[in-house]
């Protein structure tokens, strides 16, 4: 499956952090276009059904943390 993350709302490094965090549960390839990052996700065998949602959730969390760190710096 593919998930489209708008570039104005998500950060690439946050997506990379989510890919690393969920490496045991899914394989994800992230590509970049003008307005979005697209993650192509393949869930590992035995992974929970909501693993893609959890992955997107994690990407948002990492984005927010980075936004706040940057604002505080």
């Amino acid at each position, binding site marked *: 499956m593919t998930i*489209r993350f*708008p570039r*104005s*709302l*998500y950060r690439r490094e946050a997506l990379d952090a989510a890919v690393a965090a969920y490496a045991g549960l899914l394989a994800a390839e992230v590509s970049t276009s003008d*307005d979005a990052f697209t993650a192509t996700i393949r869930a590992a065998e035995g992974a929970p059904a*909501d693993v893609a*949602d*959890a992955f*997107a*959730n994690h990407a*948002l*969390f990492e*984005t*927010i943390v980075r*936004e*706040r760190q940057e*604002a505080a710096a």
Partner: protein
Amino acid sequence: MSLMEAELTYELDDRRVSFVVDEELYPRDAIYGAAYLFVDRCWVFLDKPADRKVSIRLKAKTPVEAAVLEALAGEFANELLNQVCRVRIAESTSKLREYTLARAFFADDTRSSIDQLLAELDAEELAEEPLEIPVPWETPAAAPAKAEGEP
């Protein structure tokens, strides 16, 4: 604006509830702030359906009734307003906070004000002890004489 327009318009779909907010009313920081508080309760996903619009999708982690999803959307909307207030207050008081911090860090009268307070305490005449109970540390001469050979 009619009452219906004033209410939060959302879409329900299985375990998901989604709604669109205007970034003119809800700044990006407020949206992030509310989302941050909900990422542990549900799956949160943001999308950009149009310029200055952000779509927020909340998906329950377990199957729930529609009423629960509606309540979740309402709570999120309330938190959005709360976060907007926080952002606005932070913006309007930023100069004041900068000034206060700068004064706290760079003013050199901190030490002297502490010294001044200590001097005031030293100079202050203590009130008379109403019970006039003698305390041994104030009358060293009254201490019993030590016996010879006592260390």
